């Protein structure tokens, strides 16, 4: 009876220890720490690029994917070495304030406006500005992320482009404060419109077995382009930031190999990013 008990305790201990050993060993030197937005991580692009980068340069890339606002804040706090984000105007201010340096455009993807197939506001095929005016005029449900993310900022800029105020307090304007996918799902439940990056929409459509209740209604407008840039953290402010590794990463991303990888990257069989780095 006692022996059996002791055996059981031993077995449990061994299992726990084995599991703890199963973690891959950490390599501390030559590590580049990056903060990026959820969209790049969620599409799997970084998982695709990181091994190639390590192979080419011998530098390990670690990244944390957070909202754009938080990513910028982490850079400001010297917690990361490099940023890969998509909020051009915020980035420019960031560089002006001296937090980031060497902003370099790498690639873009695009946003789309989605809505129910019935399209109650009749926006299908319109230009963005006309489409949003129609939504506003109709008072149709429009779901916004409302989380100060890059995507949210983009959406706000579209509303501003209509020349009228953002419908912040309208009852038909639903701010979720959640991620893109959660917001799309809410839009579907409410039979409303939303603006999303194409990558998330492709994923969403895939989970709906190819027949999603929400369809792409507005696309291919220049205003919907979503520019991704890489920024190094200012080494004069953050002395511990690995500026040289950040530069290596930036150069590599703009190089032929990485630009080719970005072009060839497919999400569920569909291309997503267009490389546009200037060498």
């Amino acid at each position, binding site marked *: 009876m006692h022996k059996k008990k002791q055996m*059981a*305790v031993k077995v449990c201990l061994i*299992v726990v220890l084995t599991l*703890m050993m*199963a*973690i891959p060993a950490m390599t501390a030197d030559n590590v580049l720490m990056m903060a990026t937005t959820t969209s790049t991580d*969620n*599409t799997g692009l970084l998982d695709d690029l990181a091994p190639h980068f390590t192979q080419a340069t011998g530098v390990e890339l670690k990244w*944390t994917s957070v909202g754009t606002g938080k990513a910028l804040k982490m850079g400001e706090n010297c917690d990361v070495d490099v940023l890969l984000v998509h909020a051009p105007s915020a980035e420019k201010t960031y560089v002006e304030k001296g937090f980031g340096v060497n902003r370099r455009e790498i690639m873009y993807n695009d946003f789309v406006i989605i809505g129910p197939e019935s399209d109650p506001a009749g926006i299908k095929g319109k230009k963005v500005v006309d489409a949003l005016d129609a939504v506003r005029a109709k008072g149709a449900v429009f779901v916004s992320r409302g989380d100060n993310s890059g995507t949210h900022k983009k959406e706000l800029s579209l509303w501003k482009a209509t020349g009228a105020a953002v419908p912040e307090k309208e009852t038909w304007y639903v701010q979720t404060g959640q991620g893109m996918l959660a917001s799309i799902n809410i839009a579907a439940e409410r039979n409303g419109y939303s603006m999303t990056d194409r990558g998330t929409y492709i994923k969403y459509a895939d*989970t709906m077995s190819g027949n999603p209740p929400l369809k792409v209604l507005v696309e291919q407008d220049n205003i919907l382009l979503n520019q991704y840039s890489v920024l190094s953290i200012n080494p004069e402010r953050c002395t511990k930031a690995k500026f040289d590794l950040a530069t290596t990463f930036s150069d590599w991303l703009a190089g032929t190999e990485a630009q080719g990888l970005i072009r060839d990257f497919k999400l569920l069989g569909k291309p997503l990013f267009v490389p546009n780095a200037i060498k």
Partner: protein
Amino acid sequence: MDFILAGFIEAIRLLFSGDDQTWSAVGATLKASSGSMAASLTIGVPLGFALGYFQFPAKRQLRLLVDTALALPTVFIGLVVYAFISNRGPLGEMGLLFTLTGIAIGQTILALPVVIALSATAVESMDRHLRALLISLGASRRQLLFSSLWEVRYGVLAAGLTAYGRVMTEVGISMMVGGNIKWHTRTITTAIALETGKGMFSTGIALGLVLIAIAFGVNVCLSFLRKK
């Protein structure tokens, strides 16, 4: 909702096919939670015992403070710990951000009030006859203390298990302090958050089941410490 069934199948596949990413997350979860549990039990049990056992001024106020701390939201703890260990923070020099140690520190703060409050409650609910019994059988002051602690061992075990449950399942601290870095600080819960964000609902459910499986394993192990 066929992704729930898909999640079940996926969970079995992840666990038995030796999926590297899953086992890395399992390892990170176990490492961080073991560290935080070791720390919170070492600090919390003596404090909880003292809080429940001794009479001293401001005891009630202290108790109130601990009970209130039970309601600390994990994202808030994550934010505060981040503020301290960020490179710009007072402890930035220690390089704890984006490490499992950092997560363990946050989780210790999360678990401590649970351990303290529940072991204090266990001690308070100790039978009032116990003291008389032990003294009457000839226990010295020291023996009285240790025998009393031994008598409440099941209560302390329950406190530990409750705290372990909170620590294993929290996502705010791991996300904020650990950064959900693949192969390093990606725990099961942050992986679930990520997979959900990616729309991979069935993988998210699978990981959730993996977490439950681990919790079950831990409880099975600890059930041997209980009577019978």
